[in-house]
């Protein structure tokens, strides 16, 4: 029977599970995000560098193609920690722009339209709402970060053989952990700016400016006070410091990986508090 002919009847069928319900918001958000041409274009552009890296891996594993090159140069082009760190820098940069573009659309529309009471009157807690919104951006950025990174790692293993995997498996694990740390910071910054700035364009600009401003403040502290811990204020620097340890490459001058992790943990905790204060079904005027 056509839907307009039958009257309304209460639903009495089976209900879906907890995880299916949790994924409802990410599904709808992804659908809306990938309807934006700019997001699709930026995502596609972010695959150019992984493709070039794949070509590089192919070349390094086919000695016959490199026969005409200088021995020093042949020794220089290797798939090692340095290679993966360069791959990660480029993809992390792309992730910043994609997060600034997609992030503001996460929470701001719900706050602007007062939709939170509708969500929270359903079997969805504040934490599951926040996590599902976080899943949107982490999932979206994963497509251009650790997923292609793992594919490159797998390609290298496939071409170089099992011995290479046994000697370098920490590179794969470090890359995934390093990227996830960066995505967590990016997502929380995007969510926090989205929660506080209801105008999307401004929210995007705020999440971009966040990294530049903190980097500037960090450098200023170092110069003025002639210290090195000012870098810790800059989350990009701190994440980079952690990556260097994870991938076994030469770290930049400044505080160590442990100090960077502590600084990042503090920033993450601060962002969680900021988001928690905003994501409430009703605003209580005390």
């Amino acid at each position: 029977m056509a839907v307009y002919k039958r009257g309304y009847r209460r639903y009495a069928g089976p209900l879906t599970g907890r995880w299916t319900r949790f994924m409802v918001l990410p599904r709808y958000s992804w659908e809306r995000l990938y309807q934006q041409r700019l997001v699709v274009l930026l995502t596609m552009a972010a695959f150019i560098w992984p493709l070039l890296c794949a070509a590089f891996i192919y070349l390094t594993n086919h000695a016959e193609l490199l026969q005409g090159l200088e021995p020093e140069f042949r020794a220089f082009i290797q798939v090692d920690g340095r290679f993966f760190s360069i791959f990660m820098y480029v993809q992390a940069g792309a992730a910043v722009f994609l997060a600034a573009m997609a992030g503001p659309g996460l929470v701001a529309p719900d706050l602007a339209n007062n939709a939170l009471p509708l969500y929270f009157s359903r079997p969805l807690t504040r934490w599951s709402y926040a996590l599902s919104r976080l899943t949107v951006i982490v999932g979206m950025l994963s497509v251009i970060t650790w997923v292609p990174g793992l594919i490159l790692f797998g390609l290298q293993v496939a071409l170089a053989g099992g011995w290479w995997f046994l000697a370098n498996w920490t590179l794969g694990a470090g890359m995934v952990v390093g990227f996830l740390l960066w995505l967590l910071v990016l997502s929380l910054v995007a969510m926090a700016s989205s929660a506080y700035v209801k105008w999307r364009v401004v929210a995007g600009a705020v999440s971009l400016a966040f990294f530049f401003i903190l980097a500037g403040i960090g450098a200023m502290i170092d110069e003025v006070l002639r210290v090195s811990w000012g870098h810790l204020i800059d989350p990009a620097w701190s994440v980079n410091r952690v990556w260097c340890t994870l991938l076994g490459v030469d770290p930049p001058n400044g505080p160590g990986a442990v100090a960077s992790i502590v600084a990042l943990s503090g920033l993450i905790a601060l962002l969680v508090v900021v988001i928690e204060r905003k994501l409430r079904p009703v605003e209580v005027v005390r």
Partner: protein
Amino acid sequence: MDNIAVVDLENLKVTLGRREILHGITCRLGVSGKGKAIGLLGPNGAGKSTLILTLLGFLRPSAGRARILGLDCRRSMGEARSKIGYMPENDSFIGEMTAVTFLRQMAELSGLPPKAALEKAHEVLFHVGLGEARYRQLRTYSLGMKQMAKLAQAIVHGPELVVLDEPTNGLDPAARRRMLKLVTEMKNEQGMNVIVCSHLLRDIELVCDEAVILKDGLIVHHCNLEEERRSNRSFVELEVTGDDRNLRAALPEIGAEGVSEGAGRWRIVLPAGVEVEAIWGLAARQDLLVRKLTHRRDTLEEIFLKAMGHLAHTPGEGAALDAGSSTPPSSLEAGRP
């Protein structure tokens, strides 16, 4: 299941900041699964919205306990929320979404599988009269359409209990009638329990079976409108010229009772089944000339005003007592719509 109250409050206290909004409310409202509507009335600042937000688990009680459909509002809120539909007072939607997508998402969040959610979204949009506009973005809707869309999202998953906060706000008379008709259908045909929070007494009168009046964070009156309706009394204000000394004695002939206010003015209570024509006949038999006759039903407004302390008693009630009338005060006190 039959004995589970829709709302069960035990010494419920809610504090916002340093201010205590609800001061230890205790009551049992409605019976789960019976398809009844409960009206929540009260002036601004009485605590109606605070009570609703507490029942939805948005606010934490500072003391006491609140249960909704037998489930504790703190410990079992997840389970309770899957049985509740909520229509907030203010605009709440996602402007960039079409009505169908919005409702489908809300239904899926409540646990409906995607296919069933899509079907129900279409079904409920036709039900509330938005069938033709279901592919339009919600931000393009008029105020009345937005109200209907809010109602639609509250019932799309077929909840046991629907909480409606000022459902007729901003609606024109036709849309208001439609909204009230839908609410009545929800309880009568779908067996849903409904809590209606409204400033409009007429709306509560029309759709509710029970009414609770809140004032300053306390329940000042709880009446069963269904019983009041069933008793079907009505009131007559009569003004006559002539010798009306025998009128009091004559009133029981038609089963009525009344009190004289002097100068030919009377207040008369008619029991169920007695029409106002009987007064005309009685006046004629007593050779009285009727100068004015106002027939009205006792309204919730009267109950509300009494509960608020604006009205000392039902008109005629005090006079009846003064005159030593046999009219029991309780029967006059318990007004009816």
